[in-house]
């Protein structure tokens, strides 16, 4: 019987179940999870050491240390072209995940909806559901490079939709929303008085000639956009839990109050580490991004050898692979590859029920391990093909 990931079983639970199973194999290679294989750069750890020795009694306000908020404001201006006031338009969070949770709580209420392009990172749905709302999914298509088509967004709107989620580069489809489309999407938001929830977490990982555009950087964008970002992916700091939300002061006052209710101030020590990440040497961060670019080609070469089709990643740390020709559900194929090759690729069905004919494969393993994993996956696919 074909295994399908249903609404009854949350996508996240499926993914955690697969990770647990993979950990049971000594030689497992995980090519699914969005956790960089790089460790946090040494100068950032040194900053944490200094903070532990000298700032262990420094209280942080709920919105985060002012010095870090100033560094975030400077970064947002430099990278995203958005000017925010560190005193009222930045809140430091426990990672991008908490940033997302707070943004959803700040904007979506009971019975209201968030319009979400699909496929997407499943936590968006979970957060909206917690807030008492629901998501209105809008399909994107591999044949259109998973473009968030503004016209389709317009057609998908319902009266309950109060906010629009824009993730660029998208997770898991790795597509980048063009400036032209961002402008058109912002026009729709203005026309229907929608808040934009922007997830910019992969904004430094853009490939080829694609360009990242933050909705908040566009004319009239900032006043209706809450934007999240985090240090997890770009600085290999997933375990530290350091992220932030930026946006207009009136909405950010609510985000701040929600932060006090949900968890209070983030760790002062982690905040000093984050400050050094943003203001210290950037060479290692750039080197990591360059490595991802190189690995992307390695992954795509192997996928070509296996005969898979895919949308070439325009950004991010993964590729979304079409498995239609196997005739299997994504969970079924993921499970077979894990059992036979001890390699974990994430089933697309965990990101959207409509994406059950995709796998997500990340670039987040060292080159030798990446080649080993993809080689084993190729062998497993050969066996599956022979069996079929």
């Amino acid at each position, binding site marked *: 019987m074909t295994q399908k990931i249903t609404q009854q079983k949350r996508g*996240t639970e499926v993914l955690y179940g697969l990770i647990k199973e993979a950990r049971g194999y000594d030689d497992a290679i995980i090519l699914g999870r969005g956790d960089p294989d790089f460790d946090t750069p040494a100068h950032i750890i040194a900053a944490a*050491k200094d903070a532990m020795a000298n700032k262990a009694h420094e209280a942080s306000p709920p919105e985060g240390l002012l010095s870090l908020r100033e560094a975030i404001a400077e970064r947002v201006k430099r990278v995203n072209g958005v000017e925010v006031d560190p005193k009222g338009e930045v809140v430091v969070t426990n990672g991008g995940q908490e940033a997302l949770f707070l943004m959803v709580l700040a904007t979506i209420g009971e019975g209201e909806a968030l319009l979400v392009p699909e496929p997407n990172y499943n936590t968006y749905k979970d957060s909206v559901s917690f807030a008492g709302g629901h998501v209105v999914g809008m399909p994107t298509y591999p044949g259109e490079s998973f473009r968030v088509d503004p016209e389709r967004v317009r057609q998908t709107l319902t009266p309950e939709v109060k906010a629009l989620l824009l993730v660029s580069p998208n997770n898991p489809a790795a597509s980048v929303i063009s400036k032209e489309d961002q402008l058109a999407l912002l026009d729709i938001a203005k026309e229907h008085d929608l*808040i934009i929830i922007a997830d910019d977490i992969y904004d430094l990982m853009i490939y080829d000639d694609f360009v990242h555009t933050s909705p908040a950087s566009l004319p009239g964008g900032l006043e209706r956009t809450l934007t999240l970002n985090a240090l997890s992916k770009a600085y290999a700091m997933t375990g530290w839990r350091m992220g932030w939300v930026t946006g207009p002061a009136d909405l950010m006052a609510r985000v701040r109050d929600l932060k006090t209710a949900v968890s209070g101030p983030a760790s002062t020590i*982690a905040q000093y580490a984050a400050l050094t990440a943003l203001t210290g040497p950037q060479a290692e961060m750039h080197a990591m991004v360059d490595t991802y670019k190189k690995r992307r080609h390695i992954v795509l070469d192997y996928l070509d050898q296996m005969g898979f089709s895919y949308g070439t990643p325009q950004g991010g740390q993964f590729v979304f692979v079409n498995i239609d020709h196997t005739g299997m559900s994504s969970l079924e194929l993921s499970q077979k590859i894990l059992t036979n090759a001890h390699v974990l690729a994430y089933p697309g069905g965990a990101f959207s029920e409509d994406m059950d004919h995709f796998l997500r494969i990340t670039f987040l393993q060292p080159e030798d391990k990446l080649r080993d994993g993809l080689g084993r996956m190729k062998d497993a696919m050969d066996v599956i093909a022979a069996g079929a």
Partner: protein
Amino acid sequence: MTRKEIIQQRHKANSLLNAPFIAQLPTGDKDVSSDQPTAALELDVIASTIGALESGQTHYVDVPGIMPLREAIVSFLAGLGITGYDATQIVITASVQEARFLTLQTMITSSVAIPKVVHPGVKKALGVRAPEVQVLEVDASKGMLPTLDGLQDALEKGVKTIYLESPVRLTGAALKASAVTEISQLVESHSATLICDQGLAPWVVADGAATYTPILGSTTTLIGDVFPGAGLEAMPLGFIATDSERVAEITKLKQIMSICTSTPSQYAALKISETYEAKRVELVKKLSSAREVLEHHLGHSLPGHSASILACKTDAKTQLQGYRYADGADFGAPDTLRLLVREGLR
């Protein structure tokens, strides 16, 4: 009205969410508004934490926390007389506030009863997704502990979740053994559940000895601060101890909220756990002496058992000029204030 105006209007109308924020950490020498002792991080704790980070512990960890720390929390609780939990029943949180939020938001079915005098973080946590809230009357002569009559009344009205503090965060008053037994029986007989913040339990001195009577049993979920008084104030952690079924629900929400808890904090706490119990016992003695001196000096104190704090009537304000203390009004007791006990504060 615009969408933003609607959001703001709703926000202003949410009195629970707008409850005051109380900082966990003093902002200076004359700030005695927090409720846990502070200390410098010891060098071996810093070295061990940095060692863990340098060896690659900078990645996501398990949602409920790293297992050695969860095991250490079981031992920490045992040192306070809180037994019956194994490590799989412990969830590490980013703060005691996150522990409040996770328990309240996963355990309330429709309504909750909270004491009239309670840490304002409880109201804030409830305000995010507000259930029906009933208020339990408290007894000022017993340090603002809730009355048994009020508790019984709430249960008879059908409330299925009760939130208590023992010790009370404002006064440090802790439930006596007889009250613990009665409350446990009441809650169980009404098929209700209890969330109890026991974060000040490490500092309880009752009848002259450092002993504490916890509320235990399958109906009770405990929350508190991880290793308070050991230098973790700037990288705070909380814990939840509960049954396996609730751990699963709490872990699910924790994953949605923040994936996991910051690894540097967890590794620092793990190192602290090795020597915490002996240091805690020593600190209780010191705080207890300091509290006695302060109590004598101020002369307006309320009953309390936690050596880390002293609550008194607002008459004491004149003697506290220049100090920043916790205002009882933020907790629901306008005629009371609270001081953090420190050696030499007098």
